[in-house]
């Protein structure tokens, strides 16, 4: 059976010092984000503005997409539409076949991760070189990214040194980040110069002008696209923004939320193919229309993939990205994934304490933790939760809606803890594995109240409730 988040996170937690390191590394990025956000007095207004622009986009998505398509076509770009990941992969492959290309460079694109493009192309004999440094590292390690902005955040520099020693021939034991980065640059430079086709992702696509904006810190998208004869940009249909001026809102939010930088090193606009170049845009739905049709979940499509919710999430920091077994991990992944496959991802909305920090850092104000709660309700109703859990919940509901039964159950519970601690204090009780049980008191509060306050009049439970305005009596001090 496939392991769920809890099992994978349990495995991740076998190495506690590593969990501490992972947690602190990401918390440091959360702190950088705080510093950047607090440098902008109108930060909350900026978030609200971004949220509203995105709501406008979601409410008028089809018009904006058509407007974008027309503008892009006018710019000389070839536009393709893909209903799902498979169609997206086929379209990309057909462009490669047309040009007789069997090797290419690709900058960061979570959409292509979502569609499993790399695997698809490899199966068809195409070599893909990821050019984002972090993505190249996980690619060499044959792993998926563990974070949408920081793909190899789970790797320590010594481990990267060893990986580069094996794959790029760097000296064994050299873990100097600057040295390793330079080795990667030299390695990638050769790929950029010799590959004729480049794939990039898209951060924002401007409906008004038909241009797209790609944000990177390494300039690898530019290097790839500018050196290639064919540029294919792959984007989810929700990446549209209405006008160029709206970039002023999103670019200010994106990098500050993601890494605490004021702006990404490169925010590159791609509008027209240069002379002799071919430019393609693949617009991918892959479940987004379905999500748009779910009123409780549609606003998850506002996401600009900054990763701030990952960095703030106390569960993500202590379970690692791979525990989410989905291209997009973390809190946002946990509300996007069930839309892609409810059965496979039914565990993810439960991988949260509903603490709400994710919703507070989200630069486009997605109500992530409320959506986690709502997904739980949907998953239970649609039967994606074990029957044992459903049975225990039914029993609990029956007990808790019956005061007499509740009193007996409470007494039994306290008696059990007190007199038969071996029943609860054993390895089968997951609470007790690492925590003591509460010490049972000799009497419950209601037993004490019954004894000591029996004179206090009780509300007239039983009769039909009557609505009563709160009295406006003065409050004594």
């Amino acid at each position, binding site marked *: 059976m496939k392991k769920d*988040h*809890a099992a994978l*996170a349990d495995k*991740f*937690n076998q190495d506690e010092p590593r969990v*501490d390191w992972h*947690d602190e590394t990401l918390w440091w990025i959360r702190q950088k984000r705080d510093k950047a956000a607090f440098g902008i007095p109108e930060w*909350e207004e900026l978030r609200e503005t971004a949220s509203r622009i995105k709501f406008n986009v979601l409410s008028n998505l089809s018009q904006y997409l058509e407007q974008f398509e027309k503008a892009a076509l006018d710019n000389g770009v070839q536009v393709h539409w893909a209903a799902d990941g498979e169609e997206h992969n086929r379209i990309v492959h057909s462009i490669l076949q047309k040009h007789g290309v069997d090797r290419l460079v690709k900058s960061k694109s979570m959409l292509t991760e979502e569609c499993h493009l790399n695997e698809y192309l490899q199966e068809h004999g195409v070599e893909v070189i990821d050019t984002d440094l972090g993505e190249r590292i996980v690619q060499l390690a044959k792993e998926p990214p563990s974070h949408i902005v920081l793909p190899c955040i789970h790797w320590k520099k010594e481990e990267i040194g060893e990986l580069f020693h094996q794959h790029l021939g760097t000296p064994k034991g050299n873990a100097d980040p600057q040295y390793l980065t330079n080795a990667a640059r030299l390695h990638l430079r050769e790929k950029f110069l010799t590959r004729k086709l480049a794939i990039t992702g898209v951060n924002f696509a401007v409906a008004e002008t038909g241009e797209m904006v790609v944000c990177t810190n390494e300039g690898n998208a530019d290097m790839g696209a500018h050196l290639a004869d064919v540029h294919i940009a792959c984007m989810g249909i929700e990446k549209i923004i209405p006008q160029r001026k709206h970039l002023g809102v999103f670019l200010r939010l994106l990098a500050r939320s993601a890494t605490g930088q004021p702006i990404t090193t490169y925010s590159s606009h791609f509008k027209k193919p240069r002379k002799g170049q071919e430019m393609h845009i693949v617009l991918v739905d892959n479940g987004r229309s379905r999500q748009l049709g779910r009123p409780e979940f549609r606003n998850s499509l506002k996401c600009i993939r900054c990763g701030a919710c990952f960095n*703030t999430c*106390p*569960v993500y920091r*202590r379970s690692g990205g791979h525990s989410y077994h989905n291209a997009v991990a973390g809190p946002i992944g946990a509300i996007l994934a069930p839309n892609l496959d409810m059965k496979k991802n039914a565990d993810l909305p*439960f*991988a*949260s*304490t509903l*603490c*709400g*920090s994710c919703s*507070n850092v989200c630069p486009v104000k997605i109500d992530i933790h409320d959506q986690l*709660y709502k997904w739980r*309700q949907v998953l*239970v*109703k649609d039967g994606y939760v074990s029957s044992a*859990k459903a049975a225990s*919940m*039914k029993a609990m*509901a*029956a007990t*808790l*809606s019956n*005061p007499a039964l*509740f009193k007996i159950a*409470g007494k039994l*519970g306290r008696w059990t803890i007190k007199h038969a601690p071996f029943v609860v204090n054993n390895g089968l009780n*997951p*609470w007790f594995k*690492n*925590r*003591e049980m*509460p010490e049972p008191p000799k*009497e*419950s*509060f*209601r037993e*004490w*109240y019954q004894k000591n306050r029996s004179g206090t*009049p*009780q*509300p*007239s*439970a039983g009769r039909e*409730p*009557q*609505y*009563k305005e709160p*009295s406006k009596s003065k*409050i*004594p*001090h």
Partner: protein
Amino acid sequence: MTVGLFIPCYVDQFYPQVAKATLSLLEKLGVNVVFPMNQTCCGQPMANSGFEHLTHGCNSLFIKNFKDFDYIVCPSGSCTLHVKDHLHDEEHEEIAKAIRGKVYELTEFLTDVLKVEKLDAKFPYKVGMHQSCHGQRGLKLSQMTELVAPPFSKPEKLLRMVEGVEIIQLSRKDECCGFGGTFCVAEEAVSVKMGKDRVEDHVSNGAQVITGADMSCLMHMEGILRRQKSPVKVMHIAEILNGDIESLN
């Protein structure tokens, strides 16, 4: 003014002293308090597990028990938030709505309704204030570190009225402790790690007592502290505000 005392089910069963402190504190402040004996649970354990559709029984029982009070006060941010967000009843939706509007967590009731400015209590210890997520981010009892907004804290404001209390500074002011209801057993490894880290922040910054407005978080942290055989105690904020304990020994 009559207040209905809403005591979380696990507090009734495991932490009666917290309920007694809440009752006593409210009475000392001149409030007429009634504990409806037939109350059980707000239904949150089911709802947060995805079984909100099984909470009708809890909801109608809650409405029966609490419909007639001017205010409903609960020493738990989490249970209060659940009632505020999710108490519905098809047959009595108007009453459910009224209840959602008059249910208060204890500290916000003290600061916002009673407008308490001073308390007769003494607690000469170093106290770590745990911000429970549902109270803080849900009920907005305190400002949240993620937001670019002026700081405030209703529970801390009250703690500062207690003579001798020294509130310690935490390195992570409002990180979740990892209790999370059924999360604490369903995701045991992460839950425990979160709890250990939260406890460590308090302990390393010199807390003698960890307090908060939610006993569930404190129960989780207490379980970890006791397993570690730590001398650090947990105490609900009502116990400190009521002046129940003047000595830790």
